[in-house]
């Protein structure tokens, strides 16, 4: 492409942005709205995953120790369990601590424990598993293995709760792909129609350019660049509105989000998702223009 053509293309883009400002605003606005919905979905699913990760981190296996276990055996047992690849951490809870914890749990009703010896509860190990092993099968497998370890009398874990959590994680993952897919297709269709309408309004321009001998590439280039600009502006606008919503929710309704242990756990989109949204806008704008031009650009 000659320099004169390059300069021509960018002047056409500038002229179009200046002369057809409302067409571009409308197209970018529509893109912003559809990408806002898609981005909102990403935001929700990202935080839902965060929430599930938070719940998953609370999964622990309780291994109750035999009363006769000597101190040296305890150290050896701790070392053995810490060496398992699934294990993230092991915490020893002595009988006294277990007794105090139990009393605290009962609160005002702790009086019922009067008369009982403080060493009635066994000492135990609280075993946290690594993230990849916080699933029903892996936890059950680990519990089974611990049951066979010398010095451990009993093993417990919240089996029903882990099962529900695993189902929830699976559901969220499926929902991510199904709803994400639907939203993505809807976004494609809405943006595609908007770009097509914007180009339809300029079909005379395309026809005249062809009649005066402009090559297909020279006609396409300004439309594709305009599409990219519309897409990026639309994506940035959607991100801005998403951030406003996020800011509003985290500053004005922290209590409404009580499902999260702390406010800090509500996350905005990460850099990967922000890049995804901007790239999506960019591709939708450029691709939508190219695709819509096919209908109006005569080819030989």
């Amino acid at each position: 492409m000659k320099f004169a053509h390059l300069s021509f293309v960018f002047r056409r883009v500038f002229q179009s942005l200046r002369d057809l400002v409302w067409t571009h605003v409308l197209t970018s606005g529509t893109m912003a709205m559809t990408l806002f919905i898609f981005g909102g979905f990403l935001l929700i699913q990202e935080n839902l995953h965060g929430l599930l990760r938070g719940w998953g981190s609370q999964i622990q296996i309780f291994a109750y120790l035999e009363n006769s276990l000597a101190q040296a055996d305890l150290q050896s047992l701790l070392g053995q369990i810490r060496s398992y690849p699934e294990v993230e951490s092991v915490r020893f809870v002595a009988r006294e601590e277990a007794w105090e914890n139990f009393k605290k749990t009962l609160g005002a009703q702790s009086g019922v424990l009067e008369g009982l010896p403080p060493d009635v509860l066994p000492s135990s190990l609280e075993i946290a598993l690594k993230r990849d092993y916080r699933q029903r099968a892996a936890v059950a497998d680990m519990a089974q293995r611990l049951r066979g370890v010398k010095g451990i009398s009993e093993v417990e874990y919240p089996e029903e709760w882990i099962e529900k959590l695993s189902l929830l994680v699976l559901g969220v993952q499926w929902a991510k792909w199904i709803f994400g897919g639907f939203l993505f297709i809807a976004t494609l269709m809405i943006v595609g129609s908007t770009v097509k309408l914007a180009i339809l309004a300029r079909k005379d321009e395309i026809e005249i350019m062809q009649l005066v001998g402009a090559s297909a590439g020279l006609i396409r280039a300004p439309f594709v660049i305009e599409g990219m600009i519309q897409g990026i502006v639309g994506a940035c606008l959607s991100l801005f509105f998403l951030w406003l919503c996020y800011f509003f929710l985290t500053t004005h309704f922290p209590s409404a989000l009580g499902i999260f242990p702390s406010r800090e756990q509500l996350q905005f989109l990460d850099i990967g998702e922000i890049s995804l949204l901007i790239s999506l806008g960019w591709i939708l704008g450029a691709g939508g223009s190219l695709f819509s031009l096919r209908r109006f650009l005569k080819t030989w």
Partner: protein
Amino acid sequence: MIQLFRVSKIYPPNYPALTDIHLHVEKGEFVFLSGPSGAGKTTLLKLLFREEEVTEGQIIVNGRNVTRLDGGGVAGMRQEIGLVFQEFKLLPTMSALENVALAAEVVGMSRRESRRRAFHLLRELGLKDKHDARPLTLSGGEQQRVAIARALVNDPILVLADEPTGNLDGDMAEETMKLFLKIHEKGTTIMIATHDAGLLKRFQHRAVLLQRGRLMGDSKPAKGEVEP
């Protein structure tokens, strides 16, 4: 300059717009393509600049086989041809000067040179004070002169005009035809499609008569009358 060999065009489903046309136009000729509405004049012009494709036959324009051109070839051919239409086909968002310069920029001419050429042409065509005007603020005659300036900006070897006076009143039509004659005097081949028999009488040039898609006559400039 233009050669048509056994050219036929059938529009779907089965409407014959042109049937078995043979035509030769020499370089520098001025030819009227005449005939009533629906005779096939516009179709023939469209085949020449490859807006439509032939159903049968071959068309040679300035040594190129138009029927075999690809996208780049069609664009290249159109850069050598000036096109003028009844409905002007000007971009309403551009000034008269920009409309004319557009055709020059498309062939890769610099902006400065394109505007300089457009400015001179508009002045030559009597639109000196109108180069900043948008097409919709101009009269029909002025718009047609802008369109003619656009057709001429790349020094075309051939100008094809489809009913260029169709939307103009008598005086304007006369002025426009005189412009075409002036262009012809410089050696440019001109082909004008018109259904206005009065034009053929006033401007005595070769006239090719089409009727129902068939070539029914071809007059010589000296006689000035259509010979069946």
